[in-house]
């Protein structure tokens, strides 16, 4: 991994909450154009780490460089023009329509008093069309299904015109169809992407590289085939698996052992994720 063209460089990142260390000594880079997945069990620090990158958490140690500059030296607006975020949870009762939410993507690009002009409206129309949201344009955001909501958030992120897209569990609460659809749409954007996953098979299918977090430490990073080994998964996720090759593609396929006693591992209680 060279640092010559890294878009994002994270060195010795540490973060604590209420005096307790949540993240410790994280080192990794993101190259421009890469799709990088973050995996790890619940409470490993995936969301905390991502929140450090989009400046909601202020690191206790270490440094995060975006285009060679400390992210805390960018202004909040400058930061938001280069980095878009799709959160896991959305406010439910905000009374905004799909179009309103998408239009929020213009926020970091607009000055005080500046209103949406003809070109902005065209851009919004275009993004709505790109994500098949034209029919929902005036629907209340809170009434949409989970899959539609994620598409709206992606539309907003696209309108933000970022170089880096951060997504916290983008496939959470989605059915199989929407899980694949949203990731295909993200992949087609050819942005630099950092996304956390619970579904290891989705991570294997869509990511160029994976970061594995456990108890706030980065315990492995590399291509899915290097990282997703039977040994690592059973150790980190406390779940017995057999890893083979996906029948259609080259990437690894993770097969979970669902019943106790079939594998030598004693505590295979953590269920598999759909």
């Amino acid at each position: 991994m060279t640092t010559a063209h890294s878009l994002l460089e994270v060195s010795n990142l540490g973060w604590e909450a209420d005096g307790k260390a949540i993240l410790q000594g994280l080192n990794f880079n993101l190259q421009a154009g890469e799709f990088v997945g973050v995996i790890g069990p619940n409470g490993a620090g995936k969301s905390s780490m991502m929140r450090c990158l989009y400046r909601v958490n202020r690191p206790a140690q270490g440094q995060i460089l975006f285009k060679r500059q400390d992210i805390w030296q960018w202004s909040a607006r400058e930061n938001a023009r280069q980095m878009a975020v799709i959160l896991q949870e959305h406010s439910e009762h905000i009374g905004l329509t799909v179009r309103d939410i998408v239009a929020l993507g213009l926020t970091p690009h607009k000055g005080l008093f500046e209103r949406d002009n003809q070109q902005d409206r065209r851009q919004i129309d275009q993004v709505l069309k790109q994500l098949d949201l034209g029919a929902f344009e005036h629907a209340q955001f809170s009434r949409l299904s989970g899959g539609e909501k994620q598409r709206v958030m992606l539309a907003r992120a696209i309108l933000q015109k970022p170089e880096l897209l951060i997504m916290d569990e983008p496939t959470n609460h989605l059915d199989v169809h929407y899980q694949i659809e949203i990731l295909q749409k993200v992949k087609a954007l050819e942005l630099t992407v950092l996304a956390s996953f619970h579904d290891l098979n989705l991570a294997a299918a869509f990511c160029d590289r994976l970061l594995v977090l456990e108890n706030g430490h980065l315990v492995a990073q590399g291509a899915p085939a290097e990282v997703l080994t039977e040994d690592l998964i059973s150790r980190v996720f406390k779940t017995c698996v057999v890893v083979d090759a996906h029948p259609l593609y080259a990437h690894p396929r993770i097969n979970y052992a669902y019943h106790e006693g079939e594998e030598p591992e004693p505590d295979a209680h953590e269920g598999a994720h759909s």
Partner: protein
Amino acid sequence: MKGIIPGFRVLGVGLILLLSPLFAVSFGAADISPGEVWSALQAMFGAESGLSPIKERIVLDLRLPRVLLAFLCGAGLSLAGAVLQTVTRNPLADPYLFGISSGASFGAVLVIAAWGVGGVLTGQYAITIGAFAGSILSVLLVVSLAGTGVQIERMLLSGVAVSFMFSAATSLVLYSSDPQAASTLLFWTLGSFSAASWTKVMIPAVVVVFSCALFMAYARPLRAILAGDENARALGVEVQKLRIAMLVLSSLMTATLVATCGGIGFVGLMIPHIVRRLLVRHVRHLFIGCALLGGTFMVWVDVLARELLEQAELPIGVITAALGSVFFISVMHRRRSPI
């Protein structure tokens, strides 16, 4: 459902809003028709009105500043409510809920009680300063009680606590001052535009227009806050700073209005609610709608205050509170019925 407001509806509403002050000025003890009001207005710009000088003076020096003050007061309080509701994402927030109005009332009442009703010091500036100090005190208390995290629930609860505290203190001051002063103070805490003059209109006008311009300037980031703090931060909005700034600005505006017109309730809660239900979702439109509708509403409330009783004027706060309670009961009933 309704995407964009049709142009004609905007036009119709605008016309009502513009004509309202004209008609409102014609109400009062002396008989003056809207046509005569129009002539008097033309006289202000040098034209020959053909009215008697007394009628002209009544319109220009008494009624017009009064109507303007009522408009500014209604517009300002409604705007303050709309802004507070937006930054807290709580539709029940209003200037009172944050303790701002109670603090302002307390400060103003304290100044009046300490230096008497008619003293030299109780010119508009001393009361304004007292009200403003009271409201800033309440904001400081709310913010320090809520803590640095600026969590919305803590802020609202602190606001309620501080509001009650100042109400109690205001009542205590009223109770311990002499009966004559108390009745003046009571009338004053309920609000009135009867002392309006051009000099009294100036400061509120500057403050309301200035605040309104700032609210409009920040309409886009304020709208992002509606989507949640973390979302807004990810969109480049400095949420904490903006929330505190808007809170302080609303308090400044409310304090000025309470100092000039007394503590008038329910408007800041009711008007944004109506505007949101009838017209718009966009924060910018909400602000414009609140300023216009709130102002017009207050102009007509003042007409009621002047006309309802034969001999005396009703306090404004009595009418707004009565209308407000009826309004919220009817909203509640309509909400329940379709289920």
